[in-house]
């Protein structure tokens, strides 16, 4: 039996300077491992209209008739019939002729000349409404459950396009806690890179005001000590007597990741995570709540080269947009929370010359209605907490049922038309899309096309093709692009 004697390795092996090799860390740094891109015959990526994407996610089911698609306004009267209510806000004109929003969204209205509104987004009826299931669908393009873990939209972009800036994490998810909230496991199921592996997963920043912490050394560690710790680490790695064991490939990948982490935690870019670096007035403008602060953070991150940033009005069952009762009052407050930051984000990006190459999408998993659950013909259970045919108190005034037949999506920048409308919903109940319906699959295709990714892009997973849009069938809505 041959035993290896305690190995003090030859100098040549020990001294190989790995760190030097690492300085060439590049796109590949964020990229490692399995599923292989299928270099499909005839797969041509469209020319990218945008380099970055910001999704402003109004989680919980934003009622389009209460926001971007106003319908006949019925002011509150005790005892009013539920069926008489289409919208609880008056309609107000925006800067674009023929586009009206609900009262309370005038600031977004004032920047509509920079964007397009799709009023005919539709969702499938899944038999029973579970927000997280529809959110999973919207974010991955696939309805759960699935036989493989599906990647998030942001992970697809990360996988296919890579980072814009080597130092910045490409995919950043702002405003959603994944622990301590209802349906958290379901949220985790799609807030993931799935089969792409965690290299392409999100950096989660549930609280924008604490984001700076996530790219700082641990508390109590001075910059000096942090640098010394890194020096010690490198020194020990370089002088390690057992470098020959793990494959070079494995070692290099590990060291490269450690190097990237150190670069981020000691880089200038990490300032991007700190919203207090903004002038006070700017902070104040955005500070309508967590969502507003998240929008400011998103702007800073994109300025510094993040690829995909999502900001959400956090999903917590029965809170925020998930109005099972007291809808009018809640949405009134939410108008205030989103109006200024969304408008300001568009203006700020424009001012910095970034809007043309940044696609901003404002969306939600479905709409709401005062009367109808699901869509016409659905078997979905009625989940409203305010029952009865009439509205007897203000709490009952609002759109308390989930509606999947038609909703609005706003898009700004990233090559979309300015001041344009696509699609239409009916003026009377059912408020379904009556012109140019856009499915979730086609919505994905549209977003991906803007980013320069073919909707047919596929990866081989467990030996079978898996597409960026469901079965590769997504078709971009070309009409939204200028």
């Amino acid at each position, binding site marked *: *039996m*041959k035993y*290896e004697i305690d190995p003090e390795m030859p100098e040549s092996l020990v001294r190989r300077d790995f760190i030097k090799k690492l300085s060439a860390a590049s796109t590949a740094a*964020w990229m490692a*491992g399995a599923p292989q891109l299928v270099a*499909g*015959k*005839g797969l041509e990526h469209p020319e990218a209209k945008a380099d970055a994407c910001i999704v402003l996610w109004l989680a919980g089911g934003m009622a389009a008739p209460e926001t971007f698609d106003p319908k006949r306004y019925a002011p509150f009267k005790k005892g009013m019939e539920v069926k008489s209510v289409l919208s609880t806000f008056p309609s107000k004109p925006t800067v674009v002729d023929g586009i009206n929003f609900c009262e309370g969204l005038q600031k977004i209205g004032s920047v509509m000349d920079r964007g397009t509104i799709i009023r005919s987004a539709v969702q499938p009826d*899944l038999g*029973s409404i*579970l927000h997280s299931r529809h959110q999973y669908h919207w974010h991955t393009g696939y*309805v759960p*459950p699935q*036989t*493989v873990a599906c990647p998030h939209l942001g992970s697809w972009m990360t996988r296919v396009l890579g980072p814009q800036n080597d130092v910045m*994490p490409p995919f950043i998810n702002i405003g959603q806690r*994944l*622990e301590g909230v209802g349906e958290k*496991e*379901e949220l985790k*199921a799609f807030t993931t890179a799935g089969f792409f*592996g965690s*290299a392409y*997963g999100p*950096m989660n920043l549930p609280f924008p005001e604490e984001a700076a912490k*996530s790219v700082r050394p*641990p*508390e*109590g560690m001075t910059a000096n000590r942090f640098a*010394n*710790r890194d020096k010690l*680490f490198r*020194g*020990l*790695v370089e*002088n*390690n*007597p057992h*470098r*020959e*064991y*793990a*494959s*070079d*490939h*494995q*070692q290099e990948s*590990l060291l490269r*990741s*450690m190097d*990237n*982490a*150190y670069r981020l935690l000691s880089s200038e870019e990490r300032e991007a995570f700190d919203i207090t670096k903004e002038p006070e007035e700017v902070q104040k403008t955005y500070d309508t709540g967590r969502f507003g602060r998240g929008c400011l953070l998103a702007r800073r991150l994109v300025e510094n080269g993040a690829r995909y940033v999502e900001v959400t009005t956090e999903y917590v069952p029965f809170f925020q947009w998930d109005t099972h009762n007291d809808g009018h009052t809640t949405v009134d407050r939410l108008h205030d929370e989103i109006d200024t930051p969304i408008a300001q984000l568009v203006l700020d990006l424009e001012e910095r010359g970034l809007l043309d190459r940044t696609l901003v999408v404002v969306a939600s998993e479905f709409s709401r209605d005062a009367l109808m659950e699901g*869509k016409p013909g659905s078997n979905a259970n009625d989940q409203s907490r305010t029952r009865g045919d009439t509205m007897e108190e203000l709490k009952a005034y609002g759109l308390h049922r989930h509606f999947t*037949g038609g909703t609005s999506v706003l898009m700004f920048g990233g090559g979309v038309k300015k001041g344009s409308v696509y699609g239409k919903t009916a003026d009377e109940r*059912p408020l379904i899309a009556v012109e140019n*319906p856009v499915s979730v699959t086609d919505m994905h295709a549209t977003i991906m096309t803007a980013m320069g990714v073919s909707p047919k892009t596929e990866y081989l997973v*467990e*030996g079978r*093709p898996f597409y960026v849009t469901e079965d590769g069938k997504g078709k971009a809505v070309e009409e939204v692009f200028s």
Partner: protein
Amino acid sequence: MKFFQRYILLVFCVLRPMLAGAEVDFVHQVVPVLREHCLECHGEDEAKGGFSMNTRELFLEDEMATPGNSAKSEFLFLVEETDPEYQMPPEKKKRVPKEQVELLKKWIDEGMPWTAGFTFAKDKYEPPLKPRRPELPEITDGRENPVDRLIDAYFAENKIERPLSVSDEVFLRRVSLDLIGLLPAPDEIRAFLADPSPDKRTRKIEELLGDEVRYTEHWLSFWNDLLRNDYAGTGFITKGRTQISAWLYEALLENKPFNEFASELIAPPSLASSGYINGIKWRGEVSAGQTLDIQFAQSISQSFLGINMKCASCHDSFIDRWKLKDAYGLAAIYSETAIEIHRCDKPVGETAKAAWLFPELGEINGAAPKEERLKQLAGLMTHPENGRFTRTLANRLWAQMMGRGIVHPLDAMQTEPWNEDLLDFLASDFQVNGYDIKNVLRLITSSEIYQAKTLSVEGEPDSKYTFKGPAARRLTSEQFTDAVWQVSGSAPAAFDAPVSRGIVEPKEIEKLKLDPVWVWAALAEGNTASPAGEKVVFRREVSVKKKIRSAGIVATGDNQMELYLNGKSLAKSSVWTDLSEVSVTKNLREGVNRIIVIAQNGGDAPNAAGLFVALRMVFEDGTEEVVSTGPDWKVSRKVPGNTNVSKWDLKKMEWESPVPVYVSPWGDSLNSKVGRSLIRASKYTNAMVRASLLKSDFLMRSLGRPNRDQIVSSRPSELTTLEAVDLSNSQALADNFKKGATLFDGESAIENLYLATLTRKPTEREQKLIREALGESPDPEGKADLLWSIFMSPEFFFVR
């Protein structure tokens, strides 16, 4: 109303694009047509007239097809030809229907898209089903282990040099991480290195395999992945999923033979193991490919047979031989009702018949009730002639220990192994030895090849894989987390898995014949209950004459008690219903041991007071002894003020005999638990709470612990940047290292730190470097930073 319907129709049409406008889908539309009409003669192994459609390249030969131009595609001309001389398919065969011809034309005009890598060619390799016991090659160089005999022959044949054996340090770290998932402790390392006996590696393997709790809590993660069991996850919210945790834990603890293990999962004898086949039910409607019935088909195929039935759940698989009917046949075994076969979510007008994949071993009786059908399936799965079942697990175990399967990927068992004899030997040996999983692990770990140096390879090897030796593996999320806790002493006390950390069989409880007796100091004359707040001391000497294998104590007091064994506080209870349970294997010594209990009554008026203690000792010779509270104990009404009980002068205290106390609530509520608890305590090895027992947290997920919504059979092999960011600035981790730094003190602090993490001593060069960076005697911050630096190094991160 009419108005209304029109809109519904409109929405419907858009959501399901009809053929007319949409682009042709090669896999779902073209392949079935070619298969039905052309493949018999022009695909797979056939190429009549020299024409094969197996690949796009072959298809394009001789201008049979011209992408983008259907008019210039010879094969379409033949398909449309009406002259019986020339037409295709030939006379007497069914003609291709018009709409399918149109589809083919459209496909060609759209450029003839073809899924990359797709081929109609049959995989030449078809794995054998039956078990086979290959003849073992000659022993060379005294390498007797059957694995080595096979590998040595393989090496000789492929002219590959044997890798060198590893040192004792490397072996110890590797085998410990592999079998129980933990790093060896410095004392254990020193003892092992100092041991001159030639069989010490074999004994170490036995010791680790015999460490039931640690073994179980390591392998729990592997099985949770493979059986997609977890303590939180999708589905639980609407009660659409149940755990098998308690069952799984006990099955691993008792090393349940794998045929029984699988049978109890496939045909659950009780609710405890039923969560596996019952899958995950989401609220609302799901696609036909993800119903609970289909999930069942997919799960059992993947977990036990290494078959990916996901493709075949939707349409005939393009990557192996499984068909839609096979998936539905399995689904029908599970389904309560008749199920209609759906192809890509559309019904095909056929009802599934219960059937299983290898009818040559036997059939399922579709007319039998579900429970019976499941039993039949379990019987077929574990059939002695089902070599696929044993090969699949043997291959998984090999991959766990060696870094890569003999068949790769693990869930594509139709693939040719790089050494058929090795796989067949492991599988048949597994079966011959009673499906004993530990036996497979023993066989592998005691081989020279397992104990050889890991390979240094650049990237993934290409096309043809040749085995050259074991590969280094990244620590799993759980191994890494456990190591942090182990080195820093910061494991949590509580855990999430609903398991008893120690196996208890009913017959053991029966055998115990424990009749709990509560005792207290006799009542003063005239009293009917003990005074409120009365504090007393109990003692009992226990003479140990034989070597102890394991021992445990259960104890509780009304209202509170603290128990000391040989001067050390080991158990505390402040609520009488809270039965304190502790392993004392390491606290007992040969000779006289002393139990001291300080107990105190509560309340503000006289009330019943009592103490119950039981100690169970299991000796190396298999005999056991139970010592529990009774008149043979001593009690003192005076409690010394000094809390250091080992300093008490017992002779100066006044001792009397306690009296039994009977209060019905005690017995009613505790008696049933005591036996189980005592047995558990006396088996349980004080093992640290493990990451495998906790719900996944942020760091664990980041390090690659999967959301167990799908079956997973391997973990990530690399560290990503986001993980590195988390590891670099995680507050929890920093706090742990800070705590850990305090555990390494004195002259050999650095040496111990190296032993505890890397299972070796630091080199001169390393010591010098550390001295330069942190000074002659590093402060706690310096040691914390050193710990971090070691934990992040490749040498630590890989099982090398």
